[in-house]
């Protein structure tokens, strides 16, 4: 009996002493727990480039330019660090694919015609399983693409009977004003300028039978290669007058609009190819070129190269699947001297881009993190001694080396802190541009030493003001 009563007593007491912190813990949990905040750094590897959602970037293992990097890297960061959230920062080291990627036809869609497609066409197309005239192709296109947009360009892979034998072909067909027409594109060409060409240009070019400036060449190329696309490359052999007339062979690249740029020094001569052990003036594949060129360059070209020197090459790679007279493709390589050898630029030209997580996604961020050091505190004391309203604050800062934030008489208000931040940042970064953001971190005292950070941005009047992230 006694035992039961003892147990009852303890139970009664147990009821009385249940969890006192339950409510407090619930209250704390309800405050949105910030996502894990982290600082990460990524140096792009080949695998990382493969993850990028852009074929060219993945293939070339480099970005074309800064804007492309800013556009494509956030997705990579999000997939690599799914757990990180608002206020995380990331630094990505990546390379540019320097120079021009291969020219490619800007088609809207690629389609490979299947056996069923031929059969569905009926008639001869079905019987022979190929096309033999433009009309047949157009008929097929109308079936396959019933409502194309105006200007729609299709890259079609099909079999064509040219009268002798059926051949695999890749053709480009554009839909304009309810009609399909075949277009051809010039991607990489070799051309030697003829006398007729000079004459056709008129003016001084016709008079002298040579070019004397880039503009003339530009005009000529525009007139000659009307089907050029962005990055189209032309290896042009021509006469050039710069005091005397020389026959030059140079590579020009088209920007897709109306400008051809000379790629200086990029050509590899036949002799060079021979020296590299090639029977023909081309390499059998990209890998071979990338292996041989750095060594060759070092041995032959620049014995006085210094670290950081850059050399661009355009070389030809033989592609056996191509037909016709031009069975090589141009590929471009950019080499950098590191003091002892030449390396492919994409291996040595890491550029850094900073990102910050805004709560939803990663955005390019030019915010610089800056941590105050003792010299900064000394500077603040120096600048603010004697300043009105800062007497207690400065004395306290001088003594303790941190900002008092307890709310007492020597406590720094937010406005006063901003004044101090301005002093430090304007002194340390006199060349900062308007809009530059800094995340200033400094030691404060609030019942213990605590690090506080404030984000500021340089405004139009040359002063830093608090930057409110939530407004973004």
């Amino acid at each position: 009996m006694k035992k039961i009563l003892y147990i009852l007593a303890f139970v009664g007491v147990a009821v009385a002493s249940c969890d006192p912190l339950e409510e407090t813990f619930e209250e704390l949990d309800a405050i949105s727990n910030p996502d894990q905040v982290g600082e990460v750094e990524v140096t792009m590897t080949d695998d990382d480039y493969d993850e990028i959602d852009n074929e060219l970037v993945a293939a070339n293992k480099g970005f074309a330019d800064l804007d492309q990097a800013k556009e494509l890297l956030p997705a990579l960061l999000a997939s690599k660090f799914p757990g990180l959230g608002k206020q995380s920062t990331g630094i990505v080291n990546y390379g540019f694919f320097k120079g021009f990627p291969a020219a490619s036809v800007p088609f809207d869609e690629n389609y490979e015609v299947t056996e069923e497609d031929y059969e569905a066409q009926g008639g001869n197309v079905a019987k022979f399983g190929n096309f033999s005239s433009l009309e047949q192709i157009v008929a097929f296109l109308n079936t396959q693409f019933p409502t194309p947009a105006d200007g729609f360009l299709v890259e079609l892979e099909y079999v064509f009977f040219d009268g002798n034998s059926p051949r695999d072909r890749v053709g480009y067909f554009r839909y304009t004003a309810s009609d399909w027409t075949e277009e051809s594109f010039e991607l990489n060409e070799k051309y030697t300028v003829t006398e007729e060409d000079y004459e056709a240009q008129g003016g001084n070019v016709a008079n002298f039978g040579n070019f004397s400036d880039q503009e003339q060449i530009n005009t000529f190329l525009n007139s000659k290669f009307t089907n050029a696309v962005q990055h189209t490359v032309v290896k042009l052999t021509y006469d050039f007058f710069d005091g005397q007339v020389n026959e030059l062979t140079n590579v020009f690249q088209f920007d897709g609009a109306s400008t051809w740029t000379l790629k200086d020094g990029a050509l590899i001569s036949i002799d060079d190819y021979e020296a590299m052990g090639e029977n023909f003036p081309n390499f059998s594949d990209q890998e071979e070129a990338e292996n041989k060129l750095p060594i060759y360059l070092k041995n032959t070209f620049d014995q006085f190269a210094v670290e950081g020197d850059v050399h661009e090459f355009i070389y030809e790679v033989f592609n056996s699947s191509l037909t016709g007279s031009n069975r090589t493709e141009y590929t471009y390589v950019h080499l950098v001297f590191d003091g002892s050898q030449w390396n492919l630029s994409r291996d040595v030209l890491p550029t850094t881009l900073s990102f910050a997580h805004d709560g939803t996604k990663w955005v390019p961020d030019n915010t610089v993190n800056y941590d105050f050091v003792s010299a900064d505190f000394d500077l603040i004391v120096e600048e603010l001694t004697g300043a009105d309203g800062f007497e207690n604050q400065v004395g306290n800062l001088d003594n303790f080396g941190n900002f008092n934030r307890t709310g007492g008489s020597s406590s720094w208000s937010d406005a006063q802190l901003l004044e101090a931040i301005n002093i430090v940042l304007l002194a340390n970064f006199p060349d900062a541009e308007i809009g530059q953001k800094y995340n200033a971190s400094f030691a404060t005292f609030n019942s213990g030493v605590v690090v506080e950070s404030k984000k500021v941005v340089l405004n139009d009047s040359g002063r830093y003001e608090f930057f409110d992230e939530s407004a973004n």
Partner: protein
Amino acid sequence: MKKITSLVAVLFCMATFTVFGQDVAGTVVTGIVTDNQGSLLPGANILVKGTSNGTLTDFNGRFSVESKEQSGTLVVSYIGFAAKEVQFAGSKSVGTIVLESDSFGLDEVMIVASVAVDRKTPVAVSTLKAEEIALKLGTQEFPEVLKSTPGVYATKSGGGFGDGRINLRGFNSENVAVMINGVPINDMETGRVFWSNWAGLSDVTSSMQVQRGLGASKVAVPSIGGTINIVTRTTDVEKGGNVSMSTGNDGYQKYGFSLSTGLMDNGYAVSISGAKTFGEGYVDGTEFDAVSYFVNISKEINERHTLALSAFGAKQTHGQRQSRSRIEDYRQSERGRKYNPDWGFKQGQVTHIENNEFHKPQISLNHYWDISDRTDLSTAIYYSNGSGGGSGTGGDERDKLTNNIPGEDYRIGAFGPIDLDRIVAENRARGANGSSAIIRKSVNNHNWYGLLSTLKTSLTDHLTLLGGVDVRRYRGIHFREVSDLLGGQYFLDDNDVNNPNKAARVGDKIDFHNDGIVNWGGLFTQLEYDKDNLAAFVSVNASYTGYKRIDFFDKLDSDPAQETDRETFIGFGAKGGANYNFDEYQNVFVNVGYFERAPFFRSVWPTFDNDAVNAEAENQKIFSAEIGYGLRTEKLAANINVYRTEWNDRTEVFTFQQADGTQAFANILGVNALHQGVEFDFSYKPFDILTFTGMVSVGDWTWTDDIENVNIINEEQEVVDTVNILIEDIPVADAAQFTSALGMRLEVMPETTLTVDYNYYDRIYADFDPSDRNTADALDPWQMPSYGLVDAALRHNFTIGDFETTITGRMNNVFDTEYISDAQDRGGLAQDALVWFGAGRTFSLGAKIKF
């Protein structure tokens, strides 16, 4: 609602115990038992000699025992007193039996210590005897044993050994007078009590009395919240001794012994005891080690003179948790409540960044002189020497030791220990530049000696006059020294004008070195009237405090200004009270008093600069009034009292600069607080073997006034600044304003005692500094969650051969309740508050063998 239900549940459960009483016919003998001062002794043992017939005295000190025989002998005994035998014949009263204490000089000490006498001294009182302390203290901090006393809020603070604290009626130890054998032990400069200085006290305490409010002390003491009166053992009359050993949670171990020669033929009696206590501590990084000792030599010179020399102290070192953390930090740390940011690993060893070591022996020579039948003189000459200090961080990069370097992580893992090896490597790499982060020790040695002498004379049969003098001289020696260079070659310190750019090594002084000298003199007198049912007293005291400061670092040794002039302050007080006994069951008392207390040392040199003296620092003014009622019946003792204490002009010093650059001070008056409330406690004993105790303490403690737009004016009559302290109606923080307790003590079997105690705390606000509340729209301080804790203890006595043996097992926080005991307010919100969690379940098991 929850609290009421739970209290009712507990009461119901406990009240359903039944015991069957005895049923014997025969002679009935009655009587009253008191101690030698006339205090009734409830719970004294009455045994009919030669039988097993016995009983205990009730709350009126009365007993009624049945005997089969017509006549015989009664043996009356009580712990702490010598047993007495009394003859009886027939069914009648044997009158009042007076027991004498079994220790030399304890009665005299009681007078010096102004121990209150029940139903006579008009103060609200709770007393704890040694036996209960031994049963319930366990591994708790010494002040925690007072948990079930009304008005008390005691916690372990950070959790380090000896770091506990006690607040009484909302006042911290600055405003609570703690006395050992009548000698005040509050620090002379800061007024605080550091329990780690008194690590061995629990073993040598014979009784501990909390007198709430003004108290009965005659000496000028800061009894604003109350006084805690500790009376130590003196010398045992009986020869003998004991050995004890205990073990407990987190590696706790204690080994002790006690020996008494008893009264020897040459008139001497010697008692000594010692103990070694060590363990890892409940909180991480709070390993501790203490050796405590006690020696008391008494000599009865003749019938009129007794001399007693006592020395006790404890040398201890313990790791501390000084830093508080946010609640979320504890939750996220793997270590939970045990999380402590103040320690690290160095070469695989736990190294305390915050630790404390101290040794403060207290030696006193007590002389009791029975001058005549009506007059006696008690004198205590005492000396205490404290040495030691607390460590902490130093150096320009000391933030490494607290992991507060932006962008860097000096912890091994999240919320992990500090990576001291890394700091060592970095200091080493600095080569000839020396260390930039070190562990330094703030040393606070002190020595004080004094004399406290009380003359008591009976003017008439009913009127007693007491008077006395209390003088003391204190020197506090404060400096910092390098305690661990953490790998560097030296530490550069440029704070000593007598030795600039010092390349300090371990043990060298850095940062500051100054002495504080306090001379104290007090006079007191008290008149007591005691006739029939009325007892009253009036007492007056005056004190003189003289402060001096010597600065060895800021002033050249050749500079006479190295030592300041003596700044003197006068304090005084008067109080009176009366107790009226309506009948043998009920009494009522009232007391009222006013006193002014001299400002603390720190208010006189607020900027630690000898040249900047705040000589006009103001006294604090305290007014208190209290009324109480007591009931003593056979089975029930109950008290209820109502108090009102006004604490005015809490020291508030505002520092500003004059035009010529010198510092000046303004003493702001008007920071006032009002602490008032009701306290109720009871003890109910339905049967001999069962006692229920309980208390409820309801406090209403608030800051009362705003200080608005007080202009600070300099010598040129310019307004330098304006002071605002907006605290009106803000509750006093850092102590539970509502506390309640319920306890049960049951003799499960004749030699086995079980106690269960429940304590509930409510209305605790996170601590804040009133001086910092300058803005009108600040939130009230965060109210901490209320909590309830259950403790239990079990003791069993048996004999091993000839030796009386006791085993005691104790468990605190039986249900492992998670709670926050201390918090510092930061803006009024839970998520920002900096807290210490209370300990989880702790236990200890000990055995004591007497011989």
